[in-house]
């Protein structure tokens, strides 16, 4: 991997993790509320996939803070959204689970498990029709792979050869339910086999994720139809702030944390590019500063005005068109 990209990814992972810890902290203080789904442990996947899929459209789930940031949305706009402020990327109306920014082609933050997949497929249809030359990445968890929306999407994308990159973040759990208890096997890519080529990748390894997603992106851009990438990963925290996560044993967590994606990336940078401790300290500081700025920005930002409640139920221009 190019040094520039490796550095960028490392920075974003550091930023992402610190961002999540900051979010957690401010959830405890009550400044953030609702369901907060932290992405800690999954940074390699979230960051590297977004950097590899650097053009095209992206549809994600509710566990998307880091993806949004890696996509280029400013951390302060994300943090402000978590704080419910006007300056938030969704004006404080969406919250943690609903980060949207069409200027970054990020239609993230769907909180209906699997619900964004048909949307991603439809968007890919639009891209194919306009011969855009790029496609759509749909990111979803292992929990989404048992729902009707997922299968309909595989089938349609395949039947019509649409440029969709299905990226499954398999962290083995949907809240407290282990995937193998509700599906016949662990590897969800098997479900896609009748429809499209599949790839498996170690989701704790940013370099591997970057390469796999880049390759998959090339594939869909060439017009071959959809492709499926499954990345195995691990969330360190509970499902959301309201989940203690007791269904996973300490041993299991230990094994999983031993593969820490940030440590791994550090190692890579050390081995391939001889980066030194000072560099990592620097990056850490820079990332922390960005997070601190984001938090401060969020805290200082104004609450929405009361009138905001009624804004954007319908779009203004509509009435113009009609009358």
């Amino acid at each position, binding site marked *: 991997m190019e040094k520039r990209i490796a550095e960028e990814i490392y920075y974003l992972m550091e930023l992402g993790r610190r961002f999540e810890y900051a979010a957690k902290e401010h959830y405890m203080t009550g400044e953030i509320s609702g369901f907060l789904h932290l992405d800690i442990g999954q940074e390699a996947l979230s960051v590297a996939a977004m950097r590899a899929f650097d053009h095209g459209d992206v549809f994600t789930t509710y566990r998307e803070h880091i993806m949004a940031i890696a996509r280029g949305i400013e951390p302060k706009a994300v943090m402000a959204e978590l704080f419910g402020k006007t300056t938030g990327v969704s004006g404080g109306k969406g919250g943690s689970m609903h980060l949207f920014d069409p200027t970054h082609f990020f239609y993230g933050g769907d909180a209906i498990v699997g*619900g964004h997949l048909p949307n991603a497929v439809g968007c890919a249809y*639009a891209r194919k029709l306009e011969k855009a030359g790029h496609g759509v990445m749909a990111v979803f968890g292992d929990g989404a792979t048992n729902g009707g929306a997922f299968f309909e999407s595989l089938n349609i994308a395949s039947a019509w050869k649409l440029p969709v990159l299905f990226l499954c973040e398999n962290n083995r759990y949907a809240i407290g339910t282990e995937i193998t208890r509700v599906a016949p096997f662990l590897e969800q890519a098997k479900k896609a086999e009748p429809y499209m080529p599949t790839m498996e990748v170690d989701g704790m390894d940013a370099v591997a994720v970057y390469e796999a997603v880049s390759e998959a992106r090339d594939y869909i851009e060439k017009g071959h139809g959809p492709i499926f990438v499954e990345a195995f990963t691990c969330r360190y925290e509970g499902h959301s702030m309201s989940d203690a996560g007791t269904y996973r044993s300490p041993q299991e967590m230990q094994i999983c944390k031993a593969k820490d994606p940030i440590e791994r990336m550090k190692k890579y940078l050390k081995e391939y590019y001889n980066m030194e401790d000072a560099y990592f300290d620097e990056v850490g500081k820079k990332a922390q500063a960005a997070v601190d700025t984001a938090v401060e920005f969020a805290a200082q930002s104004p609450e929405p005005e009361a009138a905001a409640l009624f804004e954007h139920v319908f779009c203004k221009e509509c009435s113009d*068109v009609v009358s």
Partner: protein
Amino acid sequence: MLYREALNRAIDECMAVDEKVVILGEDVGRYGGSYRVSEGLVAKYGEARCIDTPIAELSIVGNAVGMAIGGLRPIAEIMTANFSLLAFDQIINHASKLHYMSNGKIRLPMVVRFPQGVSKQLAAQHSESYEQMLSAVPGLIVWAASDVNYAYHALKQAILMDDPVLFIEHELLYNKKGEVDVDTPLDPFKARIVKEGKDLTIVSYLKMVDDVMTAVPTIEKELGISCEVIDLQSLNPIDHATLEASIKKTGRLVVVEEDHYTGGYGAQIVSFAAEKLFYALDAAPLRLAGEDVPIPYNRSLELASIPTPEKIAARIVEWGKSNGL
């Protein structure tokens, strides 16, 4: 022009001028649509824009949402209202909310069309009406076309708008004849006064408007009164101004709808009148609706389950007599 031809023409004209407009649904392409609404369009615009989908209603609407995000202006057809239940997640959790949740950043210029209602002995899984459910969804515009002219103009406007519109048709109206005044656009958010009158306001929509109009001569004769008949057209938002003016004039309100009585759409209209126009009402309002039963197959039972012109006339006359008319 037939109702279905008016719909076809509205779509055709939009497709002709804007290549972003696409239609999708089961058999909408080569087959021309189960009720022939999209007949001939595939020949003009090709299969890439007249998209035959698999039987996957969740995806039909969900794909339309994604197409709209991607810059197209999709018109999704669901073959029959009952199947739209499979797409409620996409209609409600997605189409109706994304604009708001994104603080206006995402726009969904899309239309979902379906026919509903009792046709002839299609039984419980093919005969229902869902305006009562879908008009309770903020962020979704709901229009119901009882009339050929409205069908043309409103569908066209729905396609031009940047908000999601649910466009409701009725299985028995597709072959209805009527004039279309192409040059006089109308405001689809407005109710239509089908017939002016001074003693009684009858509010209805979709196919029941015709049944009401069939019943009106009997009602007027038997009660010696004149009825004002209002076709709501826009079920959400509701044109309260037109309702208010009429009710204030007549002092009496009857709502006629085909969906089930309990929780039916008309409850909202009567409740509006009771809340906002109570002192203008000279008598208790009346709701005529379908019975609270799944729609049976047998023809007499089926007809017994919904309002018919005869029943509408009889019930209103009876009510009128005991309510000072």
